[in-house]
């Protein structure tokens, strides 16, 4: 678990570089709230607190939530999200190992539905800030987050996925030319591409250390790529965007390596994880392309969490000495 925390570092650094102090502040608020909430519930449940805090699972949930939230959201948004993640999504289900849904994503979705405005205003990446405007410094950021000061104009703006969602009849080439977010990008979308690269690096480290297997992430990214190739249609005005843009935008990499690899709420067997990952990739694309939300990682993961036990049922590995795979719910033949 510590390793998971460390591996979020490249992604975190990229976020902070591109979007300023906001992510860092999110992180602190989320971790503090989560640890307090976790301790309080453990105390209520008469469980050894230090023992369970040491497994870092609460910290991991908090960090993942914080990284998913827009920088500079009001502090109470982060607090509500963290509380929901830890208290409701995790501890009320029985604590670590028993939660059927990914706690960080539950928190995220609750926030997205409850506070859509706060949750959808993203900070502008550093290279696109208007002349003379910089990201707020630490103190200024703190005052924005805690005192509700509004940031200077131009500090917040759309994300690449937003642009595609609301591009109203422009063909892709036009979007690319008109929007600095794309025209100045190296390959996918200014700022976001590097954040995703950051998470990709972190994820590859985890893969190398065999914290999780390749099945889930690969299936997810593969399906996402496949879907976006299938529906790319050469960049017409209906095109939901290129494969590269989809892979390196929004929460794609973070989701693939840090969210859907959560072992508790995912499918258990390797084959199951292939299906589970593919399902998430599919859902992400479907919601991005034809749904109401510009990004979809959280919804996709939660929906797949629902499906995990079902997937497990049909993906038991073939045991030594058996010619067939069995189903988990298969009954013994009546004797």
């Amino acid at each position: 678990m510590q390793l998971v925390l460390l591996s979020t570092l490249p992604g975190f650094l990229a976020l902070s570089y591109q979007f300023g102090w906001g992510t860092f502040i999110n992180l602190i608020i989320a971790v503090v709230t989560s640890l307090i909430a976790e301790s309080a519930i453990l105390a209520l449940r008469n469980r050894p607190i230090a023992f369970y805090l040491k497994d870092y699972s609460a910290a991991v949930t908090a960090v993942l939530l914080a990284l998913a939230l827009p920088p500079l959201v009001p502090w109470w948004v982060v607090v509500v999200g963290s509380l929901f993640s830890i208290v409701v999504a995790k501890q009320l289900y029985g604590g670590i190992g028993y939660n059927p849904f990914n706690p960080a994503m539950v928190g995220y979705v609750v926030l997205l539905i409850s506070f859509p405005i706060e949750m959808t205003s993203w900070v502008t990446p550093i290279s696109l800030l208007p002349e003379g405007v910089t990201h707020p410094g630490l103190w200024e950021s703190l005052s924005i987050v805690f005192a509700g000061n509004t940031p200077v104009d131009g500090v917040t703006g759309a994300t690449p996925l937003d642009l595609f969602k609301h591009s109203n009849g422009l063909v892709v080439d036009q979007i690319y030319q008109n929007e600095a977010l794309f025209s100045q990008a190296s390959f996918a979308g200014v700022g976001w591409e590097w954040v995703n690269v950051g998470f990709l690096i972190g994820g590859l480290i985890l893969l190398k250390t065999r914290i999780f297997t390749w099945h889930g992430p690969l299936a997810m990214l593969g399906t996402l790529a496949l879907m976006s190739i299938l529906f790319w249609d050469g960049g017409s005005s209906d095109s939901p965007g290129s494969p590269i843009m989809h892979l390196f935008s929004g929460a794609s990499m973070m989701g693939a390596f840090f969210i859907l690899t959560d072992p508790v709420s995912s499918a258990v067997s390797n084959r199951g994880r292939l299906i589970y990952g593919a399902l998430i990739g599919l859902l992400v694309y479907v919601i991005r392309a034809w749904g109401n939300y510009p990004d979809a990682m959280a919804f996709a993961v939660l929906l797949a969490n629902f499906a995990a036990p079902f997937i497990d049922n049909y993906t038991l590995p073939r045991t030594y000495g058996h010619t067939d795979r069995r189903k988990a719910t298969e009954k013994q033949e009546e004797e």
Partner: protein
Amino acid sequence: MSRTWETPGGVHPPENKSQSMTQSIGHLPIPGTLVIPLHQHIGSPSKIDVTIGQAVLKGQTLTRATLSNNLPVHASTSGTVIAIDDQPVAHPSGLTAPCVTIASDGRDQWIEHVGVTDFRRCGPLDLLQIITDAGIAGMGGAGFPSAIKLSPSKDKAIDTLIINATECEPYITADDAAMREKAQDLIQGIEVVCHILNDPKRVVIGIEDNKPQAIKALRPYIQESSIEIVPFPTKYPSGGEKQLIYILTGREVPSGGLPIDLGMVCLNIGTLIAIKRAVIDGEPLISRITTVTGGACGVNRNYEVLIGTPISHLLTHNEFDEKNCSRLIMGGPMMGFSLTSTDVPVVKTTSCILAPGHSEIPADTPAQACIRCGLCAEACPVSLLPQQLFWYAQAKDQERLEAHNLFDCIECGACSYVCPSNIPLVQHYRSSKGEIRKANIDKIDADNARQRFEFRKLRLEQADEQRQAKREARRLVTEQARATSNTSQPGSSAADIIAAAQQRVITKQASPEQQKAKFERALLAAQSRLQEAEKRLIEATTNGSKQQQTICSASVESARQKVDQTQYRLRELTD
């Protein structure tokens, strides 16, 4: 070189084998008393042959085999029988079991014994009898009577003999030492078994590549023979019978089946050496090689230990330091079990006494919640999902446990070994298996009771109906008689009818004795079949798979019905 296959999963725990291989196999002074459990194998218990106070010689039988699946045990040294009672024995639950205690006289005097001069001139059955009489059971762990394994069966020819020289458990070096020092005995044992099996097509010694010296020791003996030595990469648990068969042949023993279903037999090193001694030297199985090792023992070494030697005797001769010992394990660290007392004796399956120091194998850390990391599934050699099994074991969901193939778990402990939450997974599986077996037996009992009840009801009803029918028939006869006597028709007088009726009765009873005798014979046969079936069921419930159990219980059931039916017919006849 033969091809090998790789099993899925597996782990690489530290081997810790070198420390007990610095010296050759040692001998210990004869202990003052030996406690010999009467039941050291899988199968039914044997009959006690000695009385308290009786003097016994080394190698004398203490129990006699009464059934085909039990084995005698023998006195491991000469002395006097001082007790026949229940004593603590090596068992995970700290059970007691019937034992014969012998006070040794120190002379270690052998009973008269001779081996066969030329085993090649003996028939397989004679040799199997010798092996049974020598009390030889598999010495790798399970303790299955070896003669039964080697018995010829009508429908399955054995064409492959696999010698399990894997010894994949950490710390244990008993087989390694035996191969280095007793290679010749081993090869002779193999020759005897090959003769019994009528020269199987393939004879292969499967060995992990961490025992180069043992391989070197065996090489000169197999130059001229067709015995293959197949080394393969070290990985726990390659030594599981099923795993080894897959590694060497690429074939899988069907679930619930035995190696013989593939025409294979698998024996381990200790067993083969014991077979050689029994056949060629005429010595029963009264000693074995046991590794005494671990940081809490000043001396780490293999010993030729008499069966029945108390563990405490081994420990005191190995500078055992109790304060430094985290726990005492019989067997290896992966599959062995903790001993609660040092009084328990060494038995035929005791391959190792492990007394690790505190830093070596720390005492159990408390288990944490399963985080479903899936490491256990990666490690499982039979591709189970240990985390799911654990989940359902806690929920006591027996149906799901069976659907997840709990009974294919070989209890190797690889999953527990890798579990970051320190969950003692295997313990959960063992107790779940126990619960399911018990539930099945209960169910069989309940089914039997129900069937007996229903059968009885049916029988009573039938008897009732028959009585009614008879009554009716009699009434008809008398009525007819009355009617005919009234009309006085010739040829159908009452007397005629009655005579005819009597005649019928007589012809029906003409052979009652014969019939009775026939039924009695049938009853006897049915009863003995029932006994046989019950015996097999007991065996299957202690040893076999779920499938075998079901088959056995079905045959018990049908046998019982047969008995019931015959009894009923007989009673009907005599009533």
